[in-house]
């Protein structure tokens, strides 16, 4: 490749950056967290679960940039390892609801009728159901742990996607190109999945990014009530919750994991905004 081509490429890239600043910035943040998560064993200065009675509750210092907790564990290392769990929570916690909700919403919106009515009533019920009762009971029934949390999230979370997609489907299935597809003798699955779904899904993709934030917070809320990730695993929500008894004496225990949640959330919402701009949601 010639120098000229490279220069052109970099100009194009810069233009893309300027245009998609939000998206790029958001994706950059997410990528950073991803790298941190992947590189945790290398980056983290200490073992995240190793307790050290000699350095309990130490304020941030050169040795421990984020300080230590009441077991003398290094907060920085825990925050770094926490990225693994929290990214996983955000991704899996969104993926399942997304897939389930999208599928259900597509069918309900496209076919309508009794199935649609039943599904929408179910959606109403879940929406009206106190989230906490549902969450706590599902976790209690399934036993504690991340997988229960995912299942609970999926059982509750699909509703939003189903609603979004269904609403889009109702509009799109009467659109001219859907009618055109019918008039051309296309099969229903083809119309649903090849023609309508790709056009209906943009809103859900954008929403999934803010949903990721909500899932992270849901995790934190469940942790506050004591049913989060099992100790001694480092997870930001749990760290924040555990640190609450030290808020007045050792602020660093809550602040750094809290800030990490904020940054990750910020990354996700930037990507969401960026995708929205790109997919022409706000126009």
């Amino acid at each position, binding site marked *: 490749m010639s120098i000229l081509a490279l220069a052109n490429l970099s100009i194009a890239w810069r233009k893309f950056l300027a245009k998609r600043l939000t998206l790029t910035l958001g994706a950059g943040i997410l990528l950073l967290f991803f790298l941190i998560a992947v590189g945790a064993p290398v980056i983290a200065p200490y073992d995240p*679960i190793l307790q050290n009675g000699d350095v309990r509750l130490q304020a941030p210092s050169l040795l421990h940039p984020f300080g230590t907790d009441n077991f003398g564990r290094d907060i920085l290392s825990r925050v770094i390892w926490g990225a693994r769990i929290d990214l996983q929570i955000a991704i899996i916690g969104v993926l399942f609801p997304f897939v389930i909700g999208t599928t259900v919403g597509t069918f309900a919106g496209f076919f309508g009728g009794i199935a649609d009515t039943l599904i929408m009533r179910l959606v109403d019920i879940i929406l009206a159901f106190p989230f906490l009762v549902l969450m706590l009971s599902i976790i209690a029934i399934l036993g*504690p742990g991340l997988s229960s949390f995912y299942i609970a999230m999926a059982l509750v979370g699909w509703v939003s996607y189903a609603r979004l997609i269904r609403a889009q489907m109702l509009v799109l299935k009467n659109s001219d190109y859907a009618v055109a597809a019918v008039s051309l003798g296309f099969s229903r699955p083809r119309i649903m999945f090849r023609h309508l779904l790709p056009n209906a899904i943009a809103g859900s993709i954008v929403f999934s990014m803010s949903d990721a934030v909500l899932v992270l917070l849901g995790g934190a809320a469940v942790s506050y009530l004591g*049913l989060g990730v099992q100790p*001694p695993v480092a997870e930001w929500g749990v760290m924040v919750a555990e640190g609450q008894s030290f808020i007045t*004496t050792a602020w660093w225990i809550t602040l750094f994991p809290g800030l990490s949640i904020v940054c990750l959330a910020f990354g996700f919402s930037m990507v969401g905004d960026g995708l929205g701009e790109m997919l022409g949601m706000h126009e």
Partner: protein
Amino acid sequence: AGVLTIGRREDSTTFDPIKSAQNVDNWVFSNVFDVLIRVDRTGTKLEPGLAESWTISDDGLIYTFKIRDAKFSDGSPITAADAAFSLLRIRDNEGSLWSDSYKIVDTAEATDDKTLVVKLKTPSAPFLSTLALPNVSVLSKKALEEAGEEAFAELPTAASGAFTVKEWRRGDRVILEKNPNFWQADRVKLDGVEWISVPDDNTRMLNVQAGQLDTAIFVPFSRVEELKKDPNLTVHSDTSTREDHLLINHEHGALGNKDVRQALDMAIDKKAIVDTVTFGIGEVANSYVPKGSLYHYADNYQYPYDPEKAKAMLAEAGASDLMLDYVVNAGNEVDEQIAVLLQQQLQKAGVTVNLQKVDPSQSWDMLVAGDYDISVMYWTNDILDPDQKTTFVLGHDTNMNYMTRYKNDKIKNLVAAARLELDPKKREDMYIEVQTTAKNDVHWIDLYYSPYINISRKNIENFYQNPLGRFFLEDTVKN
């Protein structure tokens, strides 16, 4: 003078003493209802309450109480009939949570207004102690029947204690007012008391720091050091009967082996737990009978912390790759911290621990079902006598020795005998034997004792509770 405000975690659930077994309720009952016999401030002696004096027949079956001249808050006299009614009610009432504890009572009769005669089915050394329980407080038969049980439980119309219930704002606070008809009314300095529910620990402390509450109870260990520095506050540390211990399921594989249990005991650094979890406030426990309680054996054996030896013992017992399921109570900060700590300590002895955090109700189920290997629980005494706890923990009773499934017939017989032994000296010896045997068997692992920690503003004096938890608000002064 003045109204004392006390911040606590949860609000009361009822004012019918027989229908609750929770400290939140009992501690308020003690302010509102008086008992025949009280436990003193040190928690080691009984002292007269509404019963001025009492005699016990030689066979230990018949108790005769002389009821003091006292009035309910509505002005009616407190009679032996009321006392008999209350005692029989806790035994017979359908809604009573305590009937099992009073099944030993055969009859209770008021022979006259001031004389109550109670006949037991069998002799019982701890019986007098059980009369000090707030749940068996003396209620006014007339008031209760006039108001109806439910209404009375909402807002008692007659109080026998230092205060009457003026208002109960559910979920928020219980408002008590001085009872002018209380027999020790001149002892009471406060005009009233408000028990206010502030669930969040930080918020509760902040309320006292900001001067919006006079006192707060349940101070987290982690906050003590800092609160002591606040010039406006006094931090109180009152001896309690609380003991935290590690339950072991004796029915699970290697855990049935005494050597393995002893190894586990040696693998645990209790001092480190005291330092980390209680911030040095607690004290390493050496017996299931808490320090300062009746018949506590101070010289009981204490396993040394020796992870190497523990490892060797485990290997010898063929349990070198021991894997244990540890049920942790979610939402309990202290429990979770102990779990994290123990996990690492046991690791050093080659024991792998899986933490299973579940909510407290569920952990009960798992413990009862034997669905666990180890788990940390705690116990506080309701009565002064060690019999209650001993029976539950070692009496081979219906609860499988507090879910440990520990079996030792010698202990079983000893516990039963001690209950009947009326001679204090002999009883003490028996309890020492129980304590040493249990320790040797490692029925569970004693971890630490911890005090009640409360804070109050500097203008509050004489705010304290006895080891059984009773707050002596009749002595409290608000300046």
